[in-house]
């Protein structure tokens, strides 16, 4: 019976992967805190910004990829996640209720930048 259980789990993983795999290279890094979008940055432009005040996460965009380089949360899951660049990928900081997710779309011009 064990082998059916393990095979079932792996099959479910394969199906879910095919359904939800990240797409093409994204265009924006969208910052959401507490379910509210607070900023979006184009991946085409290298920057480093500090998100939040007392609870901070440092977001770096470099080489068309976004990563959290430092944070004062307890677990540093966001830092360990590394760089994300594909549409649908995300970096999560659960203690700060923050997500940086990658969205696709038009390659943004500098004029269209917000935040």
């Amino acid at each position, binding site marked *: *019976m*064990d082998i059916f*259980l*393990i095979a079932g*789990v*792996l099959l*479910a*993983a*394969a199906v*879910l*992967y095919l359904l*939800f*795999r*990240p797409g093409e290279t994204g265009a924006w890094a969208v910052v*959401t805190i*507490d*379910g509210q979008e607070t900023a979006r940055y184009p991946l085409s432009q290298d920057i480093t910004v500090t998100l939040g005040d007392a609870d901070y996460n440092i977001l770096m965009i470099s080489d068309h990829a976004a990563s959290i380089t430092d944070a004062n949360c*307890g*677990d*540093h*899951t966001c830092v*360990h*996640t*590394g760089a994300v660049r594909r549409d*649908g*990928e*995300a970096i*999560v900081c*659960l*203690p700060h*209720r923050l*997500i940086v*997710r990658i969205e696709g779309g038009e390659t943004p011009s500098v004029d269209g930048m917000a935040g």
Partner: protein
Amino acid sequence: MDGKHIARYALLTALAMTLAWLESLIPVSSAVPGMKLGLTNLVVVFALERMSVRDAAAISLVRVLLVSLTSGNAYSFAYSLAGAALSLAVMLPLKKTGRFSITGISVAGGVCHNIGQILVAMAVLGTSRLVYYLPALLVSGAAAGTAIGIVGGIVAKRVRLA
């Protein structure tokens, strides 16, 4: 409940807390939210094999509470409680069917632990986008569960309870 039983509870709970601390020193297991090696599950596996289903549940839940009180916050408590509770909710009935070996039960526990954690993360963050982490969490949960189940099974066979 006799004194021997209480001492055994205390010993296993302390061991589970120590393993939780040990695991927190391994950074690679936290690159995906919810991904864990699940060292503390060794204790649950041991209790399931050698003690009772009720003992395993009690030790696991007390461990979650104590670890959160000493080193966590409200969110990490919700997070690990969801993992432990869902994992127990699946492992205990599987154990009762008598059809699965301890490795199979441990796999189910590892996978459900990860699913529970990602569900809480989705609820806290108010997004369903984290489902794309699920395949990685299922595979890692199955791998970790297999390893923990095999080791836990050996330990449960060898340890002599006084």
